[in-house]
C-alpha cells in the first residue's frame, strides 16, 4: 500500500530537512515543472488526477485553479495560499504534515503557485502550531537559500516570494474568504461569493486557497502522473487520505490510507477498536461539524459520495468516536460551545442562534431543560441550516446537533425527565 504523503516521516518526530527531502526525490517535481511544464499542464495534470480538496468540502483542486485568469493580460499580483489553519474539532492531520514534512507542503504550494502564475505565496498557519511555525520558517529559509524560491527560480522566468503568516487564531479562518480577510489584516469575517477569490481574493487580486493536505499531494501527482494518483484510491475516489480517530479507542491517531477505505478498517484496524469496557455508540466521520453516523455504518467506504449518502460528510476524514458511557448531550454541548464561541459575529442566525442553542443544551444537560426545548433545537437546526447563513460555519455546527437529536433523542428526553444527566449519575 502506497503512502506517498507520510511514508518518509521520521520516527523520531523531527522534520525532514531539505537535504533529506531532496535525497528522497524532493523538489524534482518543482524542477520538472520549471524546466518544461507550462502552468496549464500542471493544472491539467492535477485536474486529471481528480484530486479533491482535503479541507472538508472536497472541491476538485484542478478546477479551482483553472478558474484563475492566466496568461497575457491576467491581473497581477496573484496570490497562492496554503490553508494551515487547522481548527476543526477532532482534526490533527495537517499538523502531522506541517511539523514532520514541511518541504513537501512547500513544494506543493510552489507548484500550485506556478500553476496559477502566482507572484506571492503564503502559508496561513494556525497560531497555536508553534512547532510547525518554527519548522516551516526554517524550511522556507532553506528553500530560499537553495534558490528554490525568489527571483528567476532555478534559472527560469518564474519568480515567487513565499511567506509564513501566523494567524491570530479563529476557527472561521479555515473558511477561505475569512482567511483572506484575516491575511489582509481585516476582521476574519467571510466574504460573499461571487466574486470568487480566483477573481477577487486577497487585496482584490486573483487568489487560490488550498488545504495543506491537498497541496502535499501535488508534488507526487506531478512526479508520478495523474493515473498513478487515480490508482491510489479504492473505487471512484483517487489518491490517499489522512484519516484520524479520536475518542475512547485503543490507539487514537492518524494514518494515511487509500481513499475509500472502509470505516471499520480505520476504526478497528488502525485505531484498534474501542477500549475495553466501552461500546461504540456513534461517531462523527469528518470532524466536529459533521453528522453522527452509527455502528451500522461501519462498513461504508470513506468517500465523499458514500458518507454523503449516509447523511453525513467525510469532511476532514477525522473520526470522533462517541462511546456508550459518554453523554451525547454533553458531547454536542461541548461542540456547540465551541461553534458559538467561534462564530465570527457577522450574520444573525449564527451569531445569535448558536449561543441560544448552547444555552438550551446547557439547560438540558444541567437538568433544567423542558420538552419544548427539543422542538426549539430542531427549529434552530433548520434556522441555521444550509442556505440560511452567510457561510458554512453554522450549518456545520448544526450537523452534530440535528443528527444527535435524531439518533440519541432518548438521551435528551431522559435529561429532561430526570432533571439531571443520566451519564453523570451512573459514573458516581
Amino acid at each position, binding site marked *: 500500500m502506497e503512502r506517498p504523503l507520510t511514508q518518509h516521516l521520521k520516527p523520531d518526530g523531527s522534520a525532514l530537512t531539505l537535504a533529506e527531502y531532496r535525497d528522497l526525490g524532493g523538489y524534482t517535481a518543482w524542477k520538472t515543472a520549471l524546466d518544461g511544464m507550462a502552468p496549464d499542464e500542471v493544472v491539467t495534470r492535477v485536474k486529471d488526477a481528480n484530486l479533491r480538496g482535503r479541507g472538508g468540502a472536497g472541491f476538485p483542486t484542478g478546477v479551482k485553479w483553472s478558474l484563475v485568469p492566466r496568461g497575457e493580460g491576467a491581473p497581477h499580483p496573484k496570490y497562492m495560499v496554503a490553508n494551515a489553519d487547522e481548527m476543526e474539532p477532532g482534526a490533527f492531520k495537517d499538523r502531522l504534515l506541517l511539523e514532520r514534512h514541511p518541504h513537501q507542503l512547500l513544494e506543493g504550494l510552489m507548484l500550485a503557485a506556478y500553476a496559477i502564475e502566482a507572484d506571492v505565496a503564503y502559508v496561513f498557519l494556525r497560531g497555536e502550531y508553534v512547532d510547525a511555525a518554527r519548522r516551516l520558517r526554517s524550511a522556507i529559509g532553506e528553500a530560499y537559500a537553495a534558490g528554490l524560491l525568489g527571483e528567476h527560480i532555478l534559472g527560469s522566468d518564474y519568480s515567487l516570494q513565499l511567506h509564513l503568516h501566523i494567524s491570530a487564531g*479563529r476557527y472561521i479562518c479555515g473558511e477561505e474568504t475569512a482567511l483572506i480577510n484575516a491575511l489582509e489584516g481585516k*476582521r*476574519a469575517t467571510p*466574504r*460573499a461569493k*461571487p*466574486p470568487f477569490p480566483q*477573481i*477577487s481574493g486577497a*487585496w*482584490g487580486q486573483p487568489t487560490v486557497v488550498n488545504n495543506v493536505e491537498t497541496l502535499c499531494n501535488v508534488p507526487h501527482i506531478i512526479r508520478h502522473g495523474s493515473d498513478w494518483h487515480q490508482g491510489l484510491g479504492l473505487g471512484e475516489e483517487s489518491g490517499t487520505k489522512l484519516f484520524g480517530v479520536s475518542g475512547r479507542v485503543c490507539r487514537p491517531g492518524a494514518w494515511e490510507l487509500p481513499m475509500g477505505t472502509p470505516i471499520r478498517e480505520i476504526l478497528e484496524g488502525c485505531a484498534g477498536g474501542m477500549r475495553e469496557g466501552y461500546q461504540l455508540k456513534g461517531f462523527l466521520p469528518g470532524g466536529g461539524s459533521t453528522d453522527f453516523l452509527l455502528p451500522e455504518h461501519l462498513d461504508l467506504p470513506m468517500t465523499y459520495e458514500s458518507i454523503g449518502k449516509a447523511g453525513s460528510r467525510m469532511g476532514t476524514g477525522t473520526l470522533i468516536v462517541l462511546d456508550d458511557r459518554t453523554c451525547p448531550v454533553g458531547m454536542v454541548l461541548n461542540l456547540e460551545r465551541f461553534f*458559538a*464561541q*467561534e*462564530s*465570527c*459575529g*457577522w*450574520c*444573525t*442566525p449564527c*451569531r*445569535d*442562534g*448558536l*449561543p*441560544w442553542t448552547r*444555552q438550551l443544551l446547557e*439547560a438540558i444537560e444541567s437538568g433544567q431543560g423542558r420538552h419544548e426545548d427539543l422542538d*426549539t433545537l430542531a*427549529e434552530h437546526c433548520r*434556522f441555521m441550516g444550509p*442556505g*440560511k*447563513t*452567510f457561510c458554512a460555519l453554522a450549518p456545520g455546527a448544526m450537523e452534530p446537533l440535528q443528527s444527535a437529536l435524531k439518533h440519541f433523542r432518548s438521551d435528551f428526553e431522559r435529561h429532561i425527565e430526570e432533571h439531571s444527566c443520566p451519564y453523570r449519575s451512573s459514573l458516581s
Partner: protein
Amino acid sequence: MSRILIDDREYEVNPQHNLLQVILSLGLNLPYFCWHPALGSVGSCRQCAVTQYMDENDSRGRLVVACMTPIQDGMRIGLDEAQASAFRASVIEALMTNHPHDCPVCEEGGECHLQDMTEMSGHNLRRYRGLKRTHRNQYLGPFINHEMNRCIACYRCVRFYQDYAGGRDLSAQASHNHVYFGREQDGVLDSPFSGNLVEVCPTGVFTDRTYSRHYSRKWDLQCAPSVCAHCAVGCNTTPAQRYDRILRISNRYHHQLNGYFLCDRGRFGYDYSNAPERLRQGYRRSAEGTDIADASALLDELLERIRDPAHAVFAIGSPRASLENNFALSTLAGPEHFFAGIAAGELQCLRRYLSLAARRDSGYATLRDIEQADAALIIGEDVAATSPRLALSLRQLVRNRSLARAREQKIAPWQDAAVRNLGQHTRSPLWQLVPCGTALDDITERLFCAPVDEISRMARALAHYVAGEEAGTGLTAAQLAWIEDAAAMLSQARQPLLLAGCGLAAPDQLDALAELEQALRDRGHEPLLYVGAMESNSVGLAALAQQGFDELTVALEQARAQGKACSLVILENNLQRRLAPDALARLRGLAEHWLVLECLDTDTVQRADALIPVPTQFEQQGTLVNASGIAQRFQAVQSTECAPPWQQLSRAAARQQSSGPHARWAQLAGWHNSDAVRHSLAAAVPIFADIERAGPGVEARIHGAGFQRQSARASGRTAMHAYRQVREFPPPADHDSPYRFSMEGVPGPGAARASVWAPGWNSGQALNRFQQEAGGDWRETADLVRLHFEALDQPPASPLSTRDSAQQWQLIPCYEVFVEELSGYAPAVAERAGPAVLGIDAQSARRLEVNSWDSLELHYGDCSQTLYVQVDPSLPAGSLAIPQRPGFWLAGTDPSPALSLRPALQPLPRPVHLIASDKGGGHG
C-alpha cells in the same frame, strides 16, 4: 426594465438594483437592517430573506437574501411565502435574544427601525430563557450617546463611519455575539460626520446627545423643512422643536445635495437658537447707559435719519440672512447705500464666482455631480473645514475608479463589500494644490503644498500648459513636474472636477481656475466646477449687493466731507469677523451711530448704539443661495412674537405718513408677506428671476388643505404652561407660510414635508415610501431653482490688493470644522472646537525653538493672544497657519497684516484630553 413575479403578481423593475431595493421601491414591505441605500449590500443580517423559485414548476423554492440577489428578467419571488416569513421572524427573534426591553425609556422608541421591522416580521413572543449579554458603554464626546446593549450588530455604523466617511476611531471589535462597536477607548469621536450614526443605526445604540438633554418623542415634535445655516453647501435639514426650544436637527433628504448625510456642525449647531446670548429686547445705548427701547421706535428714528438730508445712512447686509431680509434692507436704504457685509478679499472671490458663472451655461456642480466625477483637482481651498459635507462627497468621488473596475468584473455597484475588496487600492485621482495638508490627505493621490501666491501662479501655469502653451518661467523643477502630471491627470479623466473657494481670499486663484476651465473646455473636456463660499447666503448677498467695505469707507468719507452725519444700519453681521481691528475702529469713527439688527449678542452688538432683536432662521421663512448657485427656501419651525427683519422694515415704512423722497418705501410698505418680497426681488434683480419657485408660496394647498408641522399623532397640548395659565391657547397662526403650527392639514409636498412617516415605518427610513425608487429622488420632485447668472452684468473685476512682499511671514488662514459663527453658540459644537492652535512650519519652529503644544504670544493690531503651537511639516518655510477665529488675523480682512510672535510670558498648560466614562459617573 425587467419583469419579475412577486407572489404571482408581475412587476416592472429596475434591473440595476438588487431585489430588496426593488421590493421597497414597489412600495412592498420587507424588513431589513444591514442594507442602506447609500451604503449598499453586505448580506450580514439575513433579515430580508425571500423565497426564490427556479421556474414556474418549482413549488418549494429556496431562501435567498434579497439585498444580495441581482434582478433577472422573469425571476419568480415569494415574499409572503410561509418559509421565508418564518425565517424572517426567526431572525428578529434571534436579534431580540440580547436586545433590552427598554423601549419605553429608549430615546429611539417611536422612531426605531428595529421596532418597525419587529412589528413587520410578526415576532412578538420571547422564548429565549438565557441571560442577555451586556456591554460597557463608552463616552464618545458631546454629540453621541452610546448604549451598546441595544446593538443588533447590523454593522451599519462601522460601514458608514469607516468605509463611507473615512473615520478611523470607530470599529467593530471582538466576535461572536460579543461584537462591540465603539472606540478602542473612551473618547470623542473624531469624524465630523459622527452625527449620522444616529440616523444610520437602526436602533438606539447611537443617539443624539444634545437632543437627549431636552428629549421629546418624535410624534410630539414640531418640524418644518429647512436649510442648514452653517456653511454654503446648503444641506437640507429638518429641525424639530417643542416648548419654544429647537431640540434637534435631522437630515432631510436632497437627491442632488446632502443625500442621507449631514456634517456634525450642521447637525449640532442648532443650539445657538437656544443660547443665553439670544437677544429678545431692543435697546438704546448712550454714555449714560442702556435703555430698553421699542424696535418700532428705533426703526422710526432710522427712517427719520434716512429722510434727513443732513444725515447719510449706510446699510450693511448679511451673508447669513435670507435674501428677503437683505433685499428689504437694500430697499429701505437704497441699493446705492447697501453694502455686502463680506470681507474685501472674500467679496472679490465672490465677484469672480459670479462672473465665472455668468459665462458658463452649466452652472456649478451639486454634490451629486461631484460624486459622479472621476478626478478632482482642489486649488487652495480646505473644503474639509469650510464645507465639511462636500468632503464626504469627495470621499465617494475617489471610489469611482474601483466601481468602474467592479463593472468590468460584472460586480454590481451595490455589492458593497465586493466592490471595496476588489478596489481597495484603486482610487480615482484626487489632487490638492493647497497651502498645507487637509483632512482629505488620506485619499489624496498627490498633495502639493505651496504658499498662497504660488498656488495661483501654478494653477495659471497649469492652465497655460493644458492650453498647449509654455507653462511659464520661474517655476521650480518640482512645480513643472507637478504641472505636467496634473495636466495629464485632468486630460485622462472622463469628467474632472475643479474645486476652489473663497477661504484663502485669493481672487487670483479663481482667475486661474477660470483659465484652467476654459483651457480644458477648449480641449474638448467638460469639467465640473465648484467654488466654495463661506456662509449660507454668501452667494445670494454677493449677487444682491454691488458694493463692499472698500466702497463703504469711500462713501462714508465722502459723506463726511459733505458735512453729513453718518450712521450705519447693520443686519445680522459681526463686523469683527469681516474687518481688521484698525479698519473696524476706523469704521466706528466714521459712522457715529450704529443700529444693529441681530439675534445674538455679538461683538458688533456690543459696539452698537441701538439694537433691534430679530428671529433666527428657525423662526421665519426665507431663501438662501448655496455655493452650487441653487436658491432654497427654509420654513419657520417655531413661532415667535418677533417679526423677521423684512417685516419690521416693511411695517416701519408703512407707518410713514408719506413715502417722502423714497418711492421705494411704498413698495416696502406694501409687502404683506414674504411672497411679496420675493416677487419684488425677482422683478428688480434679474439674477433672482426664479426664486419664487424655490419653495411653496403662502397660498400653496394640497386638496385645499394647508401643511402640518406636527404629526397626526402629536400628543396635543399639555400642562406644560399650566403654571402660567391653565387656559388652552390656540395654536399660533402663520400668515407667512402654508405651514401650520399644529397637526392640522396634510404633509407638505415631496421634500417640503415637515417629516416622513408612513404606516409601519416610524423611523426616518420611512423615506423610501416617498422616493421614486429606494435611494432615488423624491416622488414629487421640484426642479432645482438656479440663479440666472447669465442675467448678470459682468461686474468689473476689482483690482487685486497687493500683498506686502516684505512680510516676515506667509500667512495661511486655517479653518476648522467646529469653528463657525452661529454653531459656536451651541455648547456641544463649542466643546468640539478646542483651543486655538497656531500652525508653524518645521524650519521656523526650529528657529524659534518651539515644539508642538508649546505656547506663543501672537500680537496683531491691539490684540495679543497666547495660543498653542502645532508644528506642521506640510507648511512651506516661513509660514504661519492662523486659526480663523475672531481676534486673530482673518483672511481677506487686511492686505498687509502686521503680526508678530513672542515667547509666551505665561505658557498655556499642556492640554489634557479629558475622558469621561460611565464608570466614573461622567456619562449621561
